[in-house]
């Protein structure tokens, strides 16, 4: 089958699809190094000036800081909730479990716009204005299902016998959790945290509804800048974001895999 004309056709088509998916992003990264005043072709030379300009742009630096803090808090909270819920789903059998598996991912089953509107209006009604806490609550509820899905998949693979051994050797359930379960779960925890951080860091659909005036995250900052015109600065910012959201998970995954490998050999 391999090297047959059919297979060659399939691989060439695949390459074309991958080019379709990546070419525009590559162009963004290329243009970020363009010397020209306008973020467009033809390229006139290579420089880092737009990255320097990014660094000196207070609005962007502020947006960056907000995105980082928001992403970090979101990932801690939603991973904690998500892992507890995943433990219940993987380790226990209880009535209503099937329904629970749908309930837990319900925040991604309904359109994000609807979730954004509902949360915004309800909390406004309760007297919570558009604010950072609202943004955080929104990001938590929206990222939690992803954590549940990712962590559940990893938890299933962890052998129950290790915990049973610890319990039979006299450890209580809390000791067992911290000495055995948690270290074994570490790759899952890491995966959940990275996943929720990246989703929060990238989110714009809900964020535009929840963010108070004057507060921008990186995506909403880009969105606001796009309203004027596309400048090389946006391309540079895009490049920085791609590097953060791609390189970070890749190293995270590598660390996770190494940890998991070490667990197995031990």
């Amino acid at each position, binding site marked *: 089958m391999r090297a047959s004309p059919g297979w060659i056709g399939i691989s060439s088509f695949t390459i074309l699809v991958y080019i379709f998916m990546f070419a525009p992003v590559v162009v*963004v990264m290329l243009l970020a190094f363009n010397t020209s005043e306008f973020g467009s072709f033809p390229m006139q030379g290579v420089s880092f000036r737009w990255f320097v300009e990014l660094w000196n742009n207070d609005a962007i630096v502020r947006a960056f800081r907000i995105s980082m803090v928001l992403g970090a808090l979101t990932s801690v909270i939603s991973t904690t909730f998500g892992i507890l819920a995943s433990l219940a789903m993987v380790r226990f059998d209880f009535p209503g479990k099937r329904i629970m598996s749908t309930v837990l991912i319900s925040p991604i089953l309904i359109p994000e716009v609807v979730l954004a*509107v509902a949360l915004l209006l309800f909390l406004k009604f309760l007297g919570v204005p558009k604010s950072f806490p609202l943004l955080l609550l929104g990001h938590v509820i929206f990222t939690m299902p992803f954590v549940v899905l990712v962590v559940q998949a990893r938890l299933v693979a962890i052998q129950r016998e290790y915990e049973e051994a610890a319990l039979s050797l006299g450890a209580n359930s809390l000791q067992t959790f911290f000495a055995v379960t948690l270290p074994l779960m570490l790759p899952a925890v890491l995966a959940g945290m990275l996943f929720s951080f990246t989703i929060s860091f990238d989110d714009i659909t809900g964020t535009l509804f929840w963010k108070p005036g004057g507060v921008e995250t990186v995506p909403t900052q880009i969105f606001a800048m796009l309203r004027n015109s596309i400048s090389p600065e946006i391309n540079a910012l895009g490049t920085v974001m791609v590097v953060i959201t791609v390189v970070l998970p890749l190293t995270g995954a590598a660390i996770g895999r190494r940890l998991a490998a070490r667990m197995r050999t031990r």
Partner: protein
Amino acid sequence: MSLIRRRVPADHAGGRETDAAGRAGRRGARVAEAQAIERDRKPWLLLSPALTAITFLLVVPTCFIVVYSFWLRTATGAEQVGFYLDNWKEVLSDPFYRDILLETLKIAAISTVACALMGYVPAYFIAYANVRHRGFLLLLLMLPFWISYIIRTMSWINILGTSGAINAVLLWLGVIDKPIEMLYNETSVVLGLVQFLLPFMILNIYVSLEGIDRNLTEAAKSLGCTGWQAFREVTLPLSLPGLAAGSLLCFVLGAGTYITPMILGGPEDAMFANLVYEAIVTQLNWPLGSALSLVLLIVLGGLVTIYTRYLGIDQIAKSFR
């Protein structure tokens, strides 16, 4: 889902004791019972933070906007509490809203079909590629998920814009003497959506292809099928659940977006979610915005419900494994 481990040893221990000696055994049974209750409570304890969050940040707010959609916004900008059908009458009878809803469903459908057509072959390629290359191919497939949606969307401006890549090449080749505007129309919106949604489609198809027993195609071939027939009769039907899951995901995500049309579309290319955004964020007409977002919820939620009713939610969850 099938890999749930049940904890039974405690029950066994209790049971054996009861058989052994009368009174001590009954005490053992009581202990076992207490443990059983403890065990029944534990999953709910673990679930409670997540469930509390979902209840107060999702369920109650959604019920709230149902109530809210019957309130009225008065000329002064204040809300009138009560039971008014005005918002719903406006949303359901005004052809303006109906046309945009139909347009939204059309754009989502076109994007979904395009994703299916473009996505099946790469999914097949990854599933049947050499095992050594598969990890790398899967990594490449996951990459777009990590690249920001807004960056991927705005990147099309650099490609299609008047000073974008395509125009630059065409000008340089002398095919055209002034740039053509390819942005801010329905096609550019669909293009942006397809690029955003394609990874979801490929991933879902890949997962179902991956789960197919390879012996089945071999069996079909040994019974005289050609490679193409074996694909059409065996592989394709067995991969349909993945195709369906991918299509649902693409359609729902595509129909619920307002960012893509705002960046890549012209003034005429507004989608339904843009109306919601306008009503809530720009006009501050919250009751109307509630009604509009409920329409979107009913249409897309209905679709999800029909899908899960017949095919179950597990297929979509599978792609996270």
